[in-house]
């Protein structure tokens, strides 16, 4: 007994050090797991509030580029609207049911990024939308130029977004001109480039092809822009394709969170299939 007391007395600092580092390492390992990262996240009221204050200060510096982005998107939407109007005019049938309302699958909420990371191995963003605005975990985040990430931690006012620049992100993506699909991952090297893996060999991929989201998950709508093919490595059985993102991940301000209105229906069907 005395020996143990003496041992503890002699190595008390070392034991304290081991204890604290076990906590730190445990938190690190938990943070690498998508569903377990509960404790340490910036989506709490103190850090979120501080980040919001600092964003309010620096936001004015980026107003020019945000305006440009909005104008580009407005132009695109106006063109699409005109296209639809022409089609509606030429149709002679008058439909009584407002099909837009009844077949709407997704709804969008606009939010602002208050913290952005892109230089680490596992990057997270923080947005000023929370469960008060109806944002839940596992919802898609995008802007007019393409995909950004998936929400994971949500509290009342803020939500943490797991960026596509995160080595744990795996997103279903496909070619725009064919239906061959693969998985989008990030190797942690360049924040302008992500990698598409598991694409079948018979897929005819050319440099410059556009990659969009595949719509094979309940999170993302089909057809969100991702990027263009920059390099194709066919060195082994699994071909890896480098994709240059449309988004400049170091310069994003306002985003949309996509809510899937049919998510619970799809999930319940998938569950019955497994049984």
């Amino acid at each position: 007994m005395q020996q143990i007391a003496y041992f503890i007395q002699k190595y008390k600092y070392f034991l304290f050090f081991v204890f604290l580092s076990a906590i730190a390492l445990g938190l690190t390992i938990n943070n690498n797991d998508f569903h377990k990262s509960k404790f340490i996240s910036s989506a709490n009221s103190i850090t979120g509030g501080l980040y919001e204050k600092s964003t309010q200060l620096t936001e004015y510096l980026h107003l020019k580029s945000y305006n440009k982005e909005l104008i580009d998107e407005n132009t695109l939407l106006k063109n699409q609207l005109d296209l639809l109007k022409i089609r509606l005019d030429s149709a002679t049938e008058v439909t009584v049911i407002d099909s837009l309302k009844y077949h709407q699958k997704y709804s969008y909420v606009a939010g602002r990024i208050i913290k952005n990371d892109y230089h680490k191995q596992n990057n997270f963003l923080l947005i000023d939308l929370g469960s008060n605005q109806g944002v839940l975990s596992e919802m898609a985040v995008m802007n007019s130029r393409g995909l950004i990430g998936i929400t994971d931690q949500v509290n009342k006012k803020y939500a943490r977004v797991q960026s596509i620049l995160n080595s744990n992100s795996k997103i279903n993506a496909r070619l725009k001109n064919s239906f061959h699909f693969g998985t989008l991952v990030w190797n942690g090297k360049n924040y302008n480039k992500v990698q598409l893996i598991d694409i079948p060999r018979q897929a005819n991929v050319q440099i410059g092809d556009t990659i969009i989201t595949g719509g094979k998950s309940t999170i993302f709508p089909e057809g969100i822009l991702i990027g263009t093919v920059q390099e194709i490595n066919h060195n082994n059985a699994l071909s890896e394709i480098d994709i240059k993102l449309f988004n400049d991940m170091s310069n994003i301000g306002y985003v949309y969170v996509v809510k899937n209105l049919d998510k619970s229906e799809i999930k319940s069907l998938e569950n019955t299939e497994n049984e």
Partner: protein
Amino acid sequence: MNKSLYVTFLFFSLLLLQVFVFNNILFLGYINPYIYIAFVIFNPLKEERFSFLFLSFLLGLFLDFFSDSGGINAFSLLFVAYIRLFLIRVIFKKTSLDYLLFNLRNEPFGKVFNFVIITIVIHHFLLFLIASFSFNNISSILFQTLYSSIFTAILFFLGTSLLRNKK
């Protein structure tokens, strides 16, 4: 100055500086100074080390809260806090009698330089190693350690010389 007041001031000023200024520098896209390590370098030496170890852990943990990084800052800062006493014993040849009067300002610059550089390099290497959590891209970890260490060291010595001239 009162020592506990000094430590509290150091703690919060370094936390806010790191989160809102130095984490946004990203020189050449990925090189950041991690200046909060000054907390370990400037903390007054004491025989009793529990509070110092715990505060270092806490500072790292708060930084992790802000940057969503699990516990990587907490672990690396705790580690250099733990080995600080060994480094001081080896580099400055101090015994436990000298702790009370020990002050980096009164030491020769060469020794202080060695001490600071060794602390910074060990801390940065651990930080990047745990952040990537594998030995697969060891070369990029080493390069990141090298560049960021140089950046941190330059900022650290510039900062200390500026603060010293005022007094």
